[in-house]
């Protein structure tokens, strides 16, 4: 179909998504953006968040990414992420565990703004995002 765009989400460990999409919405560092087929060549960094796309059959799909960057071409979007998970692959128990650990560490570190604090915060963000995606209605 002419108005579909090819979406490829790759991580160093594997290719997570490689299929046709009608629209792709991704969290850029300077704001969320949507891409349709025929987009101008475009490159940006991505922050932690969700990539939403509608696949060829019209179903909406969610993919968690922990930051990376993307390149959009008129017929193809490539996302390079450090880690990415489709909604069905998210391990919610693990995310919940990570959330608890991060919260605990945050409390311990709350007094001082150091590296541990920043790391715990990032871990918290990741866990929260994963859970949010997993819990959106199916």
């Amino acid at each position, binding site marked *: 179909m002419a108005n579909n765009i090819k979406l490829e989400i*790759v*991580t160093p*460990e*594997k290719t997570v998504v490689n299929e046709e999409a009608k629209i792709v919405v991704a969290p850029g560092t*300077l704001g969320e953006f949507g891409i349709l087929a025929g987009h101008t060549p475009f490159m*940006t960094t991505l922050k932690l968040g969700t990539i939403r796309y509608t696949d060829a059959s019209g179903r909406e799909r969610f993919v968690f990414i922990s930051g990376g960057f993307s*390149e959009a071409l008129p017929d193809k979007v490539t996302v*390079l992420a*450090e880690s990415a998970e489709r909604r069905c692959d998210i391990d919610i128990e693990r995310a919940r565990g990570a959330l608890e650990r991060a919260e605990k560490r945050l409390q311990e570190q709350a007094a001082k703004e150091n590296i541990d604090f920043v790391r715990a915060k990032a871990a918290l963000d990741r866990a929260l995002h994963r859970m949010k995606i997993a819990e959106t209605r199916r």
Partner: protein
Amino acid sequence: MPSLKDVKIKIGAVKKTQQITKAMNMVATSRLRGAQTNMDRFRPYAAKFAEVLGSLAEKAGGDVSPLLIPRDATKNIHIVLCTSDRGLCGGFNANLIEKAQKFMAERSGQEVTFSFTNFGKRGRDWTRKNKLKMVDQYIGVVGTRIGFNVALKAGRKLIDAFLDETHDEVYVVYAEFVSMGRQVPTIKQLLPIPPIDKKEEKAQEPVAYLAEHICEPSADELLGELLPRNIYVQLFSALLETSTSEHAARMTAMDNATKACKDLIENLTLAFNKARQAAITAELMDIVGGAEALKG
């Protein structure tokens, strides 16, 4: 002439060794397949990354990141040494360590100190034995299924140490996987990042549109963002290559060992048969001699 029993015991022992080497060979073969799959999975990412980096480097100015700038004087050289955790893989680790040693010999003319990050037990033990400074060690990484987060963590530490001037130059020593029979110890500069090859894979068509990419934020900032990631990617690829090479090296070594066992068993069996025959002949001689004596 060794006694019959001794030879028999020896044959048994060699057979058992052969069983072990054969098993290790098969294990290494299957692990090698796994390691190669990992490498294949990483390839699309690496290829795309190099492409993007190359095209950005072309557009961005020179000094976008402190990671690119060489130090005036190099005093502290850091070496990331990737070796395996386990032995029995021929000269694999010895070659890697030799590579690091050679490099150190080349650079030790000036007043430099060396420090190490070790992936793998073999390299760590060597570093310890020679009383070299070891900053970090990662055991149980090489040869297993490596996660990108390992490279991320280690890479972040290297970058931090480079930025606060603990290290002036960082190199990685790893085994490049060329083919099943050939793994080449290689040394590569990680930091400061050597000038990026802008001409990479330029022969194909994308030239035209790459020039008109909209970048958000600017190309310089994007590049600054990507350079640390480049370190992780390089480190990860070094680890993957070393893992694959380790299994390939072990496979070859174990194959040779199995063959050597086979030869040994053949020779021993020959010796055993000779000894047995000699014993029988001696016994016959006795009997014949005895019979002759009785007749007499």
